[in-house]
């Protein structure tokens, strides 16, 4: 009796951040695997939604193609350049969507009380919520983004330097983290305002659509707002302009192009704090 419930990792000692992270990733893996098996229970449905997902995201790019069939340039950018912007954001957002795309379900979990069943499990709630409804069909978005990015890189006549080569995966990863931070912060907000899923979507999906067009298309104030209020711009514009060898908007200094990892880390810390505050407020107010 005395040792009941103790795992092979021995008695509960300190429960540090490293252990939390490891436990979280482990729980994430376990739950995501369960969701994959769940969707495989309906194979035909999986195939259809995966195809539908790919088709729907492709239409975004088709819209841009149509626009370019009428004009040669959009705000001074050519089609391949736009494809580059689009591809980087597409892949970054696709990665985030695949990993934690179901955060917007948190609101309904709070409302119907099923969040409680996650809180009695020996795993961090964030990991459990992030893995909720894990869906492989979201690979469609990444595939589409990679395709467009590949096209852009093949067609563009970029003066590649090692730094510029390194810049591309850095942009994708930092962008993914920034999107992830927005998702998590949005989730945290849902603890407070339980119908916030729509607000969050306007930030993430809306944000990613905005970034798929070059900055000069939009008014300067809007650009300033997006760059500083929501650092999503670091996903794409500034580093992409560096890679493309274009001048920055708002006369920013050159080194800003290398800031994305720092910005991403900052966003993640802020989102983590917001999440903790949200969870704490849920646990002190109830549903």
């Amino acid at each position, binding site marked *: 009796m005395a040792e009941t419930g103790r795992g092979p990792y021995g008695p509960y000692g300190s429960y540090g951040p490293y252990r939390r992270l490891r436990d979280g990733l482990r729980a994430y893996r376990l739950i995501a695997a369960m969701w994959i098996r769940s969707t495989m229970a309906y194979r035909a449905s999986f195939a259809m939604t995966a195809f539908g997902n790919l088709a729907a995201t492709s239409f975004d790019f088709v819209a841009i193609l149509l626009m370019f069939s009428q004009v040669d340039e959009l705000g001074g950018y050519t089609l391949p350049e736009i494809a580059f912007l689009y591809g980087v954001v597409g892949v970054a957002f696709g990665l985030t969507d695949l990993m934690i795309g179901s955060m917007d379900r948190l609101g309904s979990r709070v409302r119907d*009380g099923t969040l409680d069943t996650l809180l009695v499990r*020996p795993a961090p709630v964030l990991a459990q919520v992030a893995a909720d409804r894990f869906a492989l069909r979201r690979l469609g978005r990444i595939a589409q983004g990679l395709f467009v990015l590949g096209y852009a890189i093949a067609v563009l006549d970029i003066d590649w330097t090692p730094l510029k080569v390194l810049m591309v995966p850095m942009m994708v990863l930092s962008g993914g983290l920034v999107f992830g931070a927005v998702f998590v912060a949005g989730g945290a907000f849902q603890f407070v305002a339980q119908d916030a899923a729509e607000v969050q979507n306007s930030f993430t999906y809306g944000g990613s659509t905005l970034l798929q067009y070059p900055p000069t298309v939009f008014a300067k104030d809007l650009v300033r707002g997006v760059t500083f209020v929501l650092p999503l711009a670091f996903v794409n514009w500034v580093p992409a302009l560096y890679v493309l060898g274009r001048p920055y908007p708002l006369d920013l200094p050159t080194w800003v192009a290398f800031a994305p990892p720092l910005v991403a880390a900052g966003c993640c810390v802020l989102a983590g704090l917001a999440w903790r505050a949200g969870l704490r407020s849920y646990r002190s107010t109830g549903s």
Partner: protein
Amino acid sequence: MGLNSTGTTGSTGSTGDISNTGYSGYSDGMDRHFIELDRVEKVFDVRKKTGFLRRERREVRAVDSISFTVARGEMVGYIGPNGAGKSTTIKMLTGILTPSGGRLRVAGIDPSRERTRLAHRIGVVFGQRTTLWWDLPLIDSYRLMHRMYRIPDARYRENLDRCVELLELADLLDVPVRQLSLGQRMRGDIAAALLHDPEVLYLDEPTIGLDVISKAKVREFLRDLNAERGTTVLLTTHDLQDIEQVCRRVMVIDHGRLVYDGPLAGLHEVGDSERTLVVDLERELPPIEAAPARVVKVEGPRQWLAFPASESAAPLVARIAAEYPLVDLSVREPDIEAVIATMYAEQAQYAKQTEFAKQTEFAKQTEYAEQAEYAEQADPARRPGEAEETVP
């Protein structure tokens, strides 16, 4: 709800049985105070919209200074009307909610501060929300528990085998959960909550919506679990039968306060509640005379007799069967609301002598007296088979 004639055994008999299976062998303080609440309270800030951007703030005391201890191996029923604070207490005990005040310990752990650590030592069954995986075979949910709780293989296998045998799950393991009946799913959920050998099992309405046979299976399993493993069981319910057949001790909570803590028989005495015997005779007859029961209603050949809940129904049934042409009968238990309502009505009479009365405002008591009346009026309407009768 109404139960059929197989369940007519007296309440005293079944509580007696359970006390024999008591789990003993622990004597140190930690085991006597396995669950410990000391003036625990939970206050919610409820914000109500009163206009555009205007909100009214109101404090709601869901749990108001509750203190009790539960020893290791006890089986406790936690009852009360809807909104009394039952779920809030369970949520604080499981670490889901943080108390606003007071001290709370489960197995020496502060639940809200060490939620994940506590999770290894408790099992929770939410009657209305399944934790099983809807589209996957039942066994897959158990495999997830195995890995998530890091249960050693041998122990997992042993626990799974025991649960499968006692809860009759063998044929269900490969069935997707969505195809299970409510009763089967509940059994599946209980098994899922026990695979990691929890020291305490919380069940929130475990028999809600189940048929008589499923209810009996669940109750029997809980008794065995307690007897063999010494698992502490705390369950909330609306069904007094759950308490009668499973728990030795019952706690009644109302308006966030603990209003009764003791054996179920005592609750009946305090509440002076009555059970109802519904008798179907061969033909219409004058009201049956069988003291201490009294006829409260006659409708054609069917008669309703009220008798004290603390009395056994058996001798009464035997007497009526001997003296009257009996076709069918059923015993209806008083529901929790009615018992509590009568309890308050009683207290209103002895307001100055009892301790409870000091804590309860007069308004509350009159409100309850009204509810008691209402419950009595409403009760006959709940008889089984009414639908057929009203059809012309």
